[in-house]
Structures are given as C-alpha cells and as structure tokens.
C-alpha cells in the first residue's frame, strides 16, 4: 500500500514537473494524462477501430511535444552556460569544467528522457483532438467505451453516405427497411453508434491538425545556443593545472620554436633583477608580477606586461627602480590603481623613466600600453581615437596635447586617473613629474592628452580622490577603458579586457593588476602586449591570433621585479607571428617573463 502510494506520488510529481516545463504551450494539458480515478484501457484495445486512425495524430503530437521539451531544456542549458560564463566568471574565475558542463548535459539528458517517457497515449491524443476540434469528447469516449471486439466494418458508415446524419439515421432495430438500405448501416446499441460517429468525425479531421510550427522555441533555443557557445568560447579557462616549477617550457609558444632556446632569466637580464635595495622592492606575493625591463631604449614600446594583482597592502613599501619602465610595464589599469600601492614603485628616477616610457604610449596609453614613440602625434592619435569613446576614462595620449607631449607625462594618464580614484596615495609617486596644462583638477573632457597631462598631476589629483576603498571600482573602470582602446588599436578583442578584468592603464612601473584583484590577492589578470597589441591575454582568451605561452597559474617563478624570488605566476598567450618578429632580446624578455628564472 505504501509502495503504491509512493508510486502514485512520484507519478504525480513527475507530471507536475513536466507540466511546469510545458507551461504556456499548446500541449501542456496533454501531459496530465488520464485521470487516476478510472484509468482508461483504451491503449490496450488495439482492435478498436479508432486506434489506427488516431495513431498518426499521436506521432505528430509526440513530435511537437518533443520539440517543445527539447527546445526548452536546451534553452535552459544554454541559459545556464551564459550565466556561468558571463555572470559568474568574475566571481568564480576557475570554475571547474564539471560544474559547467554537467548541468548542461543533465538538462539535455533530462529533456531526452522526458521526451521518451512522456509519449502521449492514444487516450491523450483522442482527448487532445476532442479539445482542439471541439468534438465534445467524442473521440475520447469512443476510444474508451467502444467494445474492443467491435470490428470497424460494423461501424462503417456506408461510403455513398460518408457521414451518418443524426436527423435521418434510424436504428435498424426500429426501422428494418433502413437497415436493408445500402445507405444506412446503423450500429446499435448507442455506444456503437457513438463510435461510428466518432470514426466519421475522425476521418474528417485534417492531418496534421495544424501547421503551427515551434518557431519561437526553436529560435530561442538557437539564440541561447549561440550565446552559450560564444560565452563558452570566451569564458575563463579551466581549472589551473600544476606545472613543474622553474622548467616551464617556453616553447609552448609555437612561434618560439625557432627562437633560441637560451632563455634569459630574470636574473640574467639586465634590469630584471630585483633591486638590491629592499626598500625599493615591491613585495611580491603569489600572483604578483612586477615588470622590470632591463633597458628602456631597447624595449620601449615593444611590449607591455600587465601582471597579476597584488594583495592589498602589499604596495607602498617603496618604489622599485624600474629601468624597463617604458618597455615592460606591468599591470592593468587596476594595477595602476595599485598604483596607489605600487606607486610605491616609483621612486622619482624610475618614475620618470616610466613616465617617459609610458608617455610615449599615447597610443598604448589609450590601450593601457606604452607608446612607441615619445610624444609622437602619430602614436597619439590612435590612442586618442581609441580612448575617446570613453571620455570618462582618459588614457594616456599626450600626443594630442602638445604640451604634454613629453613621453614622461603621457604615460601616467591612467595611473593618475587610477590614483585619483584610488585615494591619492601616489601623490609622491611617479606621476608627480607630470605636467598638467589644464590645471590639476580640471581635466579637459574627452581629451586624453590633457588628461594624460594630468597624469603628471596625478598625485595632485589623487589627493582629491576619494577614499582608498574605492580603488576597486577605479581600477576596474580604468581597466575597461584601457581595454577598449586596446581593442580599437589592435583590432583584437580580448573579452577579458572588455570585461575590465585587465587594466590597461599605462601605469608606470606599477605593473600591477587591478586593485580589485590585488586586494583579493589572487592572480587574475596578466596581459602582455607586443608592438602595442595585446599579446598575452587571460588564460581563456583563446583568440586565434594568440598562442598559449602558459596556462593559467602555471608559469612559475618570481615575477619580473619580484624581490627575493617570490613566486609569481602568470598566464597568457603570445601571438606566434608577433613574437617571432621581435628582436631576440625581446623574445628573450618575454620568455624570461614567463619562464620565471629558468635560465637565460
């Protein structure tokens, strides 16, 4: 008894669930089936003359319901994919693939199972036809109440008269002469007559019942499918996999196959070694990478690395002289933010270099990259173009500002802005060397140059900035801006940068990740640009133009400029073509960056 009750409850629950799934469709009530009170045995009466004519409708209904069910389950699965890859990506960057794909597969399997298990019965089909064509339950009643032994021929309404006319039809029991007529074959008793009429009505029904197609469901499913596909394509990478420390093969970059195997390590490269002065070093924690280009002249404008975030509070220990400021700038706009902390990195000398280097980056400044030529209007223009759409995020771009054309000033655009939003901790930072022809607090709207000019004033501006607690927002904001410019210039769209995960500001040596990430202490963003192009993106930014250098968090070793060999992990991709076109020393630098000290 208890088992029967349990079965009944399970059946009811299942049907309610399916009814919920099929809500607002034309087939919802079909799922409810026969009432439990008096189960119909119509399906077992295969010799019922109504069975065969109803079967085509049954198949048609099954197809329609299958389409609706599968479309909705696919839509559910794709919506889940979109939600996971778009909405939860930032919150949970390293979501295990099983959590992504298992619900999707489960949805599809559940839909398939429901399609198979909820095949409409003949009784359901008959009732659906009754309802659809307003037959007053004729078919359902005839299918259920007609004696199974009744042969179809006995119900036949004679062909010369396709339909029994109720007003003229007579019973052979009361009108024998009518029974002898070819025009009348009247079944008796009443149940047979009812079945005969139902059969006649059934033969008049169109097939398929209607031409209604599930265009809406199919379209929705396709849209969600595409959305899910693209969101998956640009989603975060899979869970990080461990890699051997210190021996990460740089040849992962396909282009590097032709490159010399001798990889300059951080220690071997000039300028990459951490400063001997502890106070000048930026304490790097895991996930923290500090670019310390060895030579500004050689690498200036060639590439830029935006390293992973730095934990909150890690900055500020002191500026780290960064001779590579112009060439290898790390950190996103967010990192600039960190500028609040990493501004520390900027002792004046280094800061000036950095500013000079990044200032060049009128172009890259818009992208959050270093410019290639100092104050060149050529470089500046693209930066401005790219940066203009976002007037609120004035990037570097001193080229437009002749007064700020000095490279040193331009590069700080983002950093200054970041600083300004970060609370001005960098007042003494490298930005202080910048010049602002428009005044400290009056950045010309929409003019990068002017704002880059402000970069020099960044310290001042930052002094007016709100509390440091806003650094996260500031970093993310600037990051997105920089990304936008980067896209415009490179023509590459890094979805991560679009999402503002990567700061693109040309912060000086503060090649730090976004403050948001920095505060969380997690490595999330690293970007390397080669020739002004975002060469290294996030782990899952699998652009066809990029080749993986190292998966997420698998490039071991200390970050460039990281003192005391503290581990730093990076991720990213390097375009094969670009890296092969670089001078060997730059290639070596890139390799060193990702190698993390694996020999030179």
């Amino acid at each position, binding site marked *: 008894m208890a088992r029967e009750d349990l079965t009944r409850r399970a059946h009811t629950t299942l049907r309610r669930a399916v009814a919920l799934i099929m809500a607002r469709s034309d087939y919802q009530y079909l799922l409810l089936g026969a009432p439990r009170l008096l189960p119909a045995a119509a399906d077992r009466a295969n010799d019922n003359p109504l069975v065969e004519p109803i079967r085509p409708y049954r198949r048609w209904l099954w197809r329609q319901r299958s389409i609706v069910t599968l479309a909705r389950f696919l839509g559910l699965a794709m919506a889940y994919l979109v939600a996971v890859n778009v909405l939860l990506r930032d919150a949970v960057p390293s979501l295990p693939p099983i959590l992504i794909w298992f619900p999707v597969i489960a949805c599809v399997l559940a839909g398939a199972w429901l399609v198979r298990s909820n095949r409409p019965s003949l009784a359901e089909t008959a009732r659906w036809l009754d309802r659809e064509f307003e037959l*007053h*339950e004729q078919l*359902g009643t005839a299918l259920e109440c007609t004696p199974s032994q009744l042969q179809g021929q006995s119900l036949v309404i004679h062909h010369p008269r396709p339909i029994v006319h109720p007003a003229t*039809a007579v*019973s052979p*029991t*009361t009108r024998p002469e009518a029974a002898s007529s070819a025009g009348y074959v009247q079944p008796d008793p009443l149940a047979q007559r*009812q079945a005969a009429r139902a059969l006649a009505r059934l033969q008049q029904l169109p097939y398929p019942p209607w031409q209604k197609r599930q265009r809406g469901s199919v379209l929705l499913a396709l849209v969600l499918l595409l959305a899910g596909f693209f969101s998956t394509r640009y989603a975060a990478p899979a869970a990080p996999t461990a890699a051997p420390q210190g021996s990460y093969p740089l040849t992962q970059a396909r282009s590097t196959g032709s490159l010399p195997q001798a990889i300059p390590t951080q220690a071997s490269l000039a300028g990459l070694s951490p400063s001997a002065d502890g106070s000048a070093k930026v304490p790097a924690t895991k996930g923290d990478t500090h670019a310390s280009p060895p030579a500004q002249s050689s690498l200036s404008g060639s590439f830029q690395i935006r390293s992973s975030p730095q934990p909150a509070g890690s900055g500020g220990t002191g500026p780290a002289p960064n001779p590579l400021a112009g060439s290898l700038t790390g950190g996103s706009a967010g990192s600039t933010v960190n500028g609040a902390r990493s501004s520390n990195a900027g002792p004046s000398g280094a800061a000036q270099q950095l500013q000079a280097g990044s200032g060049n980056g009128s172009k890259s400044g818009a992208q959050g990259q270093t410019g290639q030529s100092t104050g060149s209007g050529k470089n500046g223009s693209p930066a401005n173009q790219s940066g203009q759409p976002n007037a609120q995020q004035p990037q570097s771009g001193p080229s437009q500002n002749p007064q700020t054309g000095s490279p040193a000033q331009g590069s700080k655009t983002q950093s200054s802005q970041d600083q300004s939003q970060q609370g001005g901790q960098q007042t003494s930072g490298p930005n202080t060397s910048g010049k602002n022809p428009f005044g400290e607090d009056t950045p010309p709207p929409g003019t990068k140059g002017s704002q880059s000019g402000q970069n020099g004033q960044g310290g001042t501006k930052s002094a007016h900035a709100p509390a440091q607690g806003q650094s996260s927002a500031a970093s993310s904001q600037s990051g997105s801006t920089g990304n936008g410019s980067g896209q415009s210039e490179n023509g590459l769209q890094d979805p991560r940068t679009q999402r503002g995960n990567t700061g693109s500001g040309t912060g000086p040596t503060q090649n730090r990740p976004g403050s948001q990430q920095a505060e969380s202490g997690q490595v999330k963003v690293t970007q390397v640009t080669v020739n002004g192009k975002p060469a290294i993106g996030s782990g899952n930014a699998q652009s066809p133009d990029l080749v993986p250098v190292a998966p997420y968090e698998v490039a071991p070793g200390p970050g460039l400029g990281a003192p005391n060999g503290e581990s730093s992990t990076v991720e990213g991709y390097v375009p094969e073509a670009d890296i092969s076109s670089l001078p060997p020393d730059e290639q070596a630098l890139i390799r060193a960056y990702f190698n993390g000290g694996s020999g030179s």
Partner: protein
Amino acid sequence: MISPEEFQATARRILEEISTVIVGQEAVARGVLIALVGGGHVLLEGVPGLGKTSLVRAFAGALDLQFGRIQFTPDLMPADITGTSIVSEDEMGRRSLSFQKGPIFANIVLADEINRATPKTQSALLEAMQECTVTAGTTSHPLPAPFFVLATQNPIEMEGTYPLPEAQLDRFFFKLVITYPYRGELATIVRRTGSGEMPVVRGVAGGETLLAMSRLAREVPMASHVLDYAVRIVLATQPNSPDVPEVTRKYIRIGASPRGAQAIALAGRIGSLLDGRYNLSYDDVRAAVHPALRHRISLNFEAQTHGITTDTVLDEIVQTVREVPN
C-alpha cells in the same frame, strides 16, 4: 428501444407543446424534461405568478400522464397525501380495512408550495420520492410508474413556511429557479392570456415513451475522464475533502451527496441526447451542475450574512475545478 433520433424528436415535440402554454422559460422546461426523463423529481422555486403550476400542468398534459395536485398547507397531514386505511363494509356486511389512495398516487404530482406544510407532512414524501412506494400500516403500495414529484416553493415568503429538510431536498433531482420573463415574453403572456382562450396542451408522449427515453439515456457512453470531472466537481463542494476551493471552505457547511454526482451524470447524458450527441461531454456536466447541486449544498452562516447564494458558490467551483486534474 428508442433510437436517439426518436428520442430527440420526442423531446422536441414535448418542448414545443410546453411552449404553447409557457412563454419563455426554455431552460426551465428543458430542465424539467431532463429530470422527467431521468426519473427524478423537480423542485421549482420562484416568486408567485411565474407559472410554476402552469408549467407542471403543461408537462402532465404533454406527457399524457395521470396528474395529481396537492396544495400544501400547515394543517395538511401525511395521510392527506399518501392516503389512509378506512373501514369498509362489503356486500356481505363484513368490515375490513381498505387503503384509500391519496393524491400522491399519480404519475405527476404537483406539490404546490411544499414548504408550507409541516416537516411531518413533508416527510410523507420521502418514501414516495425515493422508493416510489407508500406504506400504510404494514402494507406498501407501489406508486404508478413513472412517478414524478414536481414541487414548488416561494423563496420570498418565509412567514408560516417550513424549510425543507436536507433529506428531502436531496431527493429532488433538479432544483430549477424560475425567473421573471423578459419584456417580449411578458408581452406575449399578456397577449395570450388576454384573449380568454387558454391553449390546450396535447399529449405527445406517453409513460412508455418516457421510460424508453430514460432507458436510452442510461446507455449513453460516458468516458472516465468526463466522469472524473463530474466527481471532482461534487467533491469540491464538500468542505472536508482535500484540495477543495477556498470558497468551499469558507461558505459551505454541507456539501453535495453522491446523489448529486448521479444526477449530474444522468442529466448530462440526457442533455447530450437532446443535443444530438451520443456521449457525455464536459459541457453537459457543467450544464447540469447548477440544477443538480444548488439544493444539495448548504451554506453556512457567514455565506448567508454576506448574501452568498449557492449559485455563486457553484460558479466559483466550476471555474476552479479543471477539466483535467493536476
């Protein structure tokens, strides 16, 4: 065995004859016919002057059946209805008790203003209505078949009336409410009665025909899902049943009995035949809900204070109960 076509034709003829006397009130006449075909009794309710008695008389005439009338009054005794045993003396001078049949021994009995009699007298109809017999002393006397009680009552006049007990109300197949005629109907009534010549109703069907129609109606196939719908509607009127509508819990004191479900099913079958169909449908069930259940549910005090009628409650129930259960 009568054919469905003959059934429909006979019913059409009866209703046409009724319409010669009764202007309008087609739904009431159809309801009375359904109840008569179903072998049930009808309680007609309406204010005075709407033709309740005339309707019953017209049916008696159209069906060519024996007609008896009982005017219920407060001093009416049960024996006045059922009959009584009297002492009779034969030719030999021997005396014996013989049963003198009352007015209830007829095919169609008009119980006019039934709620004016005392409950004791009203209860005299219980056995007759349910078992079609009358017991006097130790002898049961069968009533002629078919036997119908068509009772009328005035819902307005409460002074000196005795509401029918639930047991007796439940024995009525239908309770039909006669409403005021529309303007055109009223004009026709005035014109027709003003001539001084009352139309005569011809008998178009006999008792046998009516019984044949009743037998045919009981053969109308009824699918399980339609029957389930009728049953669920009846259960929805019972406040103690699970998953009943809120209106039931709030306003109904006593729900419909199984007789209600029987009445709905049978009335639906007859209705389908009248409409030229051979099976019971959801529409037939819905059409039979109000006349079959409105006198079988009892509202509580809250409903009465709020002016809620049984028809209002039934409307809500019909709207709530779905054709296909969840």
